[in-house]
């Protein structure tokens, strides 16, 4: 950037695009704190003491199920992350450390799940979940999301595990640690940064998904927050305060998490896709 003119042009374009990216989000959040009259009268103005109102939020949280939908989403996302990390790390360890006959074939088998979206099997997933008597349960969602996220996690974790110096494992073996203890006491602590990365990029799509909650747990109070908000919006379609507040209720926690974790997340996206 030697020439200041071109630097200004580049900043100008980036600022304009950033504004375009943020404007709709800010507009919704801003107006959710206003009274109905101000939403329509001055949609672009910030809420002032005279237009400030929380009436929409009263409605959203007055509908007590929204809070339980949040808990459902936290359970599903947390459960998925836990099982994806635990089973993913175990499988990644076996694939990188141990030699056996089907090693390469198994890696190819897992690659199918990275390329083909699991959604295409939805018809049979529903049949299976019905047969297992898991319809409208959070367990069903955790199973499906774990299956969906395992392959990519295994690949990313394997890459990190391949970098663990051989000496460390051998030292453990010499000290008489069993293979199981080597994994749980030496390997797992060493790949914590990689696990954080996998956790963050597993979290967002699971939290945001509409498809599987709609198919597997659409009623009975087991809705996730994304589906719950979607149903809430359908019900209150004409109540602008409630709609804007419901949208903001869904946006704000994700934004906070994103600001905290954006570094890991972007690193995870790139390490996952650059393969």
């Amino acid at each position, binding site marked *: 950037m030697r020439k200041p003119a071109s630097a200004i042009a580049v900043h100008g374009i980036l600022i304009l*695009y950033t504004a375009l990216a943020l404007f709709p989000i800010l507009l919704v959040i801003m107006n959710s704190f206003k009274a109905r009259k101000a939403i329509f009268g001055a949609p672009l103005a910030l809420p002032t003491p005279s237009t400030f109102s929380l009436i929409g939020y009263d409605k959203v949280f007055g509908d007590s199920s929204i809070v339980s939908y949040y808990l459902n989403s936290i359970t599903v996302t947390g459960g998925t992350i836990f099982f994806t990390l635990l089973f993913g790390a175990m499988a990644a360890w076996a694939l990188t450390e141990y*030699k056996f006959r089907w090693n390469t074939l198994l890696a190819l088998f897992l690659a199918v*799940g990275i390329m*083909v979206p*699991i959604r*295409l099997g939805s018809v049979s997933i529903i049949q299976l979940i019905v047969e297992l008597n898991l319809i409208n349960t959070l367990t069903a969602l955790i199973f499906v999301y774990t299956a969906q996220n395992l392959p990519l996690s295994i690949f990313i974790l394997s890459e990190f595990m391949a970098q663990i110096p051989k000496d460390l494992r051998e030292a453990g073996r010499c000290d008489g640690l069993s293979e199981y203890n080597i994994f749980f006491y030496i390997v797992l602590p060493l790949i914590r940064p990689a696990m954080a990365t996998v956790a963050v990029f597993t979290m967002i799509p699971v939290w*945001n998904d509409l498809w599987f909650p709609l198919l597997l747990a659409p009623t009975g109070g087991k809705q996730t927050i994304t589906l719950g*908000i979607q149903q809430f919006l359908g019900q209150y379609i004409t109540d602008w305060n409630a709609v804007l507040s419901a949208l903001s209720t*869904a946006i704000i926690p994700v934004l906070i998490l994103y600001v905290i974790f954006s570094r890991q997340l972007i690193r995870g996206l790139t390490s996952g896709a*650059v393969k």
Partner: protein
Amino acid sequence: MADAKAGAGNAIVGMGRGSYAVLLAFFLGPAIIIYTVFSIYPLFATIFNSLYLRQPGGAYIFNGLGNFHTLLTDTTWSVPFWNAFRNNCYFFFIHMLVQNPIGLALAAMLSLPRLRFRATYRTLIFMPTMLSVVIIGFSWQLILSPLWGISKMFLNTLGLGFLFAPWLGQESTALITVSLISVWQFVGIPMILIYTALLAIPEELIDAATVDGLNQFQAFIWVKLPLIFPTIGLVSVLTFVNNFNAFDLIYAMKGALAGPNFSADIMGTLFYRTFFGNQLQLGDLSMGSTIATMMFLIILIGIMCYLFLIQRRMQRYTF
């Protein structure tokens, strides 16, 4: 035996063949079982389902490729199917023509040397990608709504008020509007992938090019762009897979009927409607599976094209 050899050749001294097998089963078992049962089995079972036809009595009989024949030729099925397929192609082309070039341009600017506030721009521009499609869809629905009138107000300030129309409600513009909203949301993905690829190009290459008399823009076109072709290929195939698998945004904005008059209908919504049914028809497991299998084939063809036509011809540059 390979197993025995592997056991002996491996560093695990003093472990018998049996306990080695137990060890492998312990580490690999849970992941493989969950993945096979909830991901691979349903995929194949769906393909299998598509070969059966439901009889009026409720029994299923083997129908060979009959369901596919019905889907592609019987007008009750083929008209919606080709409509959804065509719309899905438009949806994909709009992403390729708008989302990926914008992503490339943003990545090129972000990767300029000595750019200030780089991380801030990157984080903020990526933000919409993080949010749920449902939330994005609904927010845009409000913004474009003539009731709120905010987009009309905006266009009026620019002196373009005459352009305003209920874009989401018109048959001629619904699909393109929905596509552009999707572009707006997901532009962060090509941006980040291309940006990372650009950062991996060593500084010296660009320095050499600038010493040879190229300016930043020329250096980008002639030096960097050819080097990131593999990433652009990857971005294209990711766009393809995601677009032909899309559902959430159309469902959130336009409902399962993808109206008006199915003008925003894509494969994902057609599949959902067929399998679950709607006001016009009952749910149909066989035809639902048939459509899912068609989606599977389309995505497979896209991935194959990428693997055989693009990736094989491309040299990977490692520095």
